[in-house]
């Protein structure tokens, strides 16, 4: 039992003590539109990793480009619908996240079609 315990400690300890390793700041997310508030110019996007889900609340200042995939067509915030799959580049500000660009890449319910 003792060698096994030693092996566990040797392999596992460095993994747990790597707390100093910081994740890079998020600067882009891809997820599904949850709520659009055109008046308040806010956008909520659902994203996540596996079953760990998060909602990103973003301010969308006037003039932030909203477009279809690859900038094919110019959209407005009003054109976005819940369930749209979007890619958002953003930055963190003292008041929260602020969107820089929004690209609508498809719909979550793409059916049998190609993955958005």
């Amino acid at each position, binding site marked *: 039992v003792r060698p096994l315990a030693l*092996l*566990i400690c040797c*392999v*596992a300890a*460095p*993994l*747990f003590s*790597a*707390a*100093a*390793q*910081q*994740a890079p700041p998020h600067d882009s997310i*891809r*997820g*599904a539109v*949850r*709520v659009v508030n055109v008046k308040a110019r806010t956008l909520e996007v*659902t*994203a*996540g*990793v*596996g*079953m*760990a*889900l*998060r*909602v990103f609340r973003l301010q969308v200042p006037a003039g932030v480009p909203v477009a279809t995939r690859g900038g094919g067509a110019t959209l407005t915030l009003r054109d976005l619908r*819940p*369930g749209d*799959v979007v890619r958002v580049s953003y930055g963190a500000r003292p008041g929260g996240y602020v969107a820089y660009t929004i690209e609508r*890449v*498809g*719909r*979550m*319910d*793409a*059916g*049998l079609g190609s*993955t*958005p």
Partner: protein
Amino acid sequence: MRGATWCLVLAVAVAAACRRPEPGDPLRGLSGAERARFDSGRVVFDSTFTPEIGLGPLFNADGCGECHEDPVSGGTGDEVERHAAVFHPGGPGRACDELAAQGGPVFQDSVTPALRAALGIDNEAVPPEVTAIAARTIPDVFGFGLLEAVPDSAILAYADPADRNGDGISGRPNRFFDGRLGRFGRKALVPALREFNDGAFQIEQGITNPSVPDEGTVTGRPLPAGTDPAADPELSARGLELTDAFVRLLAPPAPQRQSREAKQGRDVFTRVGCTGCHVPALRTGDSPIRALRQKEVAAYTDLLLHDMGPELADICFGLATPSEFRTEPLMGVRLMTRFLHDGRASTLPQAIELHAGEGARARDLFRALPPAEQAALVAFLKTL
């Protein structure tokens, strides 16, 4: 004498090569480096976490192996989780609210002493607005690397959402929030095994990591100060990578030798239409890991959503309505002691009886079978 020794060595090697994989064994054909990662990953998988090294403040288990333990690491467990969601079909937004603002649909059953002292709670409360609370048993994860290696196109080829062939079975893909095809989880929401594993560290154990760097909330409220003593991330990228290697490289349980009765049951299984959803074999595509590349996996699933009727319905998830569930893989079903997503069936015949919706036709044909053929079908399932 030397010849006899070599014969003995050869015989042992042949016997080892012919041995059927046991639950918990790695896939055959791993490189030395892959096998080393598998073994190291098992150590992380079997580790027990404490609050000092990251457990909690909310958690369901103090290690992967606490739940996935029977008969070995990576297997099933007797725990039952609470998942919840809000379903509002016909509303202005998406029909399903997976409670992402509260961290997702998984509500943890345990808290660390520090969180209990701060909030006076013993678990994470489910918010009052939910429309359903679901019980979820612990699946084994054997062979999941092979399931991930099945190309999307192979899964979508089985989909028939409008039931154009009129067999009463549709099969619908679920998709993650970024649009990728889902395949893991009882509702097939999660597209990738690595993401499932990385998310599980945070959701199930409260272990932050480079993929999920924050602890989330307590039913939407921030954690009280001082309740999470370990610095984030609480598990390194290397720890995630090794755990993923262990799970990804676990071999599926090898089907057992079939008796004459079981062979008859295999034919009955096909004849009554079980294979309409429980597709006997899927083929993997390309993979950087040779042991996962171009392999046939006897998964007995199509990895698609099927409507199972109102009696089994619980939560929505992604595109899955409350009554839609992913076809449960039957590989390794002989190792299970509870059946269906919530464990409500304690025998295989009970589980078959509880099939409804798209499974109703096969269930009715099963009911109409002579007892000997019913027994044969069950005998077949017990070889998987």
